[in-house]
């Protein structure tokens, strides 16, 4: 039997896909851009969801990985565009799959360094130390002159994907949507695997995990690094969407927003981040049209969600989480 949650999940995914295709048919290009934003932010938050939702690691610095992915796209793309070699004489590249790989590997390296130090701590300390690392790299990016510093880096021509014209909004949407679905699928497989069980028990009860012979540290570190890698791929896509990358992708506001997406959608739910991203982008878009004070009302909406609607969108649509 297909559960109610999966029905809702399928409906959400199809709705996003249908919205983009309908926008294409109606010639409303901007709505495809919005749908693409939803897919990409959804993917970034899906990455965070692996650490935060499944592993209980409240990372307040995930924007760093998002930014690393963005810079991978920006740096490789700009070198490919200008033809100048990079450090060590390496060539740039405008191929998205290669860029994603570089983004994920770079984020993995950063994730290991940050994770090894941060995961020794827990609770508020973990929240704060991930924030501190993010601030550290944020200030580095601002003052690092080679790639634009605070001014950021423009990507004049969107990077390429084999067999598709990425400059067409719908094509780029489909790539982003595919990446989102792949990300969610990865999470689904991980969650059901032995690793997923171990991560889940570590989240529920770290002492217990150790007593049954599961060492929490490597499990948490692996989850943190995988999570960073997924978020970095989303960052690369985001840079391509905006044709621009800047340190503000690494700011603590961005980290906060990623958490917001997860909570809005429903913590620990597979499609929660996507649902949260959709809601957030629509709120931002529509409130911004209504009033100059939109941030005030955004704050109110978030507050009400946290206080009174704890399950988020999926909690509302698909009921409470069930465990087996």
């Amino acid at each position: 039997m297909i559960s109610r949650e999966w029905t809702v999940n399928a409906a959400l995914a199809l709705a996003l896909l249908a919205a983009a295709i309908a926008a294409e048919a109606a010639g409303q290009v901007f709505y495809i851009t919005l749908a693409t934003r939803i897919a990409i932010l959804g993917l970034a938050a899906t990455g965070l969801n692996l650490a935060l939702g499944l592993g209980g690691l409240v990372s307040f610095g995930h924007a760093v990985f998002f930014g690393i992915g963005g810079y991978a796209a920006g740096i490789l793309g700009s070198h490919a565009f200008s033809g100048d070699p990079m450090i060590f004489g390496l060539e740039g590249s405008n191929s998205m799959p290669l860029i994603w790989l570089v983004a994920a590997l770079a984020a993995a390296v950063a994730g290991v360094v940050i994770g090894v130090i941060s995961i020794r701590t827990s609770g508020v300390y973990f929240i704060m130390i991930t924030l501190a690392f993010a601030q550290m790299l944020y200030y580095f990016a601002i003052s690092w002159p080679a790639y634009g510093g605070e001014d950021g880096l423009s990507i004049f021509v969107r990077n390429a994907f084999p067999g598709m014209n990425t400059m067409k909004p719908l094509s780029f949407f489909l790539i982003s949507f595919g990446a989102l679905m792949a990300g969610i699928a990865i999470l689904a497989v991980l969650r059901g695997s032995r690793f997923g069980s171990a991560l889940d028990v570590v989240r529920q009860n770290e002492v217990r995990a150790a007593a049954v012979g599961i060492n929490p540290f490597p499990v948490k570190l692996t989850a943190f690094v995988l999570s960073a890698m997924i978020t970095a791929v989303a960052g690369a896509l985001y840079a391509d969407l905006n044709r621009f990358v800047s340190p503000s992708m690494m700011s603590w506001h961005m980290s906060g927003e990623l958490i917001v997406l997860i909570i809005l959608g429903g913590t620990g739910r597979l499609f929660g981040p996507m649902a949260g991203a959709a809601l957030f982008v629509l709120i931002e878009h529509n409130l911004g049209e209504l009033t100059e004070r939109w941030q005030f009302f955004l704050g109110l909406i978030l507050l009400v969600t946290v206080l009174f609607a704890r399950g988020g969108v999926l909690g509302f649509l698909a009921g409470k989480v069930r465990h087996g």
Partner: protein
Amino acid sequence: MAEPVLQISNLVKSFGALRATDDVTIDLHPGEIHALIGPNGAGKSTLIHQICGTHAPNSGTIRFMGEDITHLGVAARARKGLGRTFQISSIAPEFSALRNVMLAVQARQGSSFRFFRPVRSDASLTGPAMTALERVGLAGRASLPVAELSHGERRQLEIAIALALGSRAFLLDEPMAGMGPEGSRALTSFLADLKQEAPILLVEHDMDAVFALADRISVLVYGKIIATGTVEEIRRDPAVRTAYLGDHD
């Protein structure tokens, strides 16, 4: 006498000026239940913490199956076969009883870093887990979330988890606590069988159970072992009577 399974020698642990564990030497032989008793605050918990690895001792050694494990972490000790139940039942509360036990099987197989195959349909996990549940008499409750199990059933589940880990020795921390007389009797007879499989270091307040089960008893007072011996020897030991049993007479 055969080589002890667990051999703790001259263990010392201080918190500031307080010596919570004061030169403790204690061992556990195959096939026996060795009970550790002592008044509240005697340092039983601190000792258990050091044996299972959550606290590091200041000095002394812990040997398990002939190997020095003094500096190993909690998870590594568990994987070597040092099975432990908790004073306060602490199990993954959101999981079913079966999945709790499956985790122990998974840990025993050393395979927490497999990322693809779904666990639910993995017979190499579910099979041994069901066997362990059957042994403690919980097979019929396998699919219930832990939160819905009774207190006694959670105790049984803890033991099933220790069994599934393939433990070579059990550290049981007050397994009788909170059980009704019926449950206590059932658990007592279960433990009497269990010791044939692997010896048990039993920390327990229920003196009836201790005297019924234990082959040997050690008495811990203010961090020191003041006596070790058979049930009869301990009953007769004057030091024990003054320090501990005297309170109850």
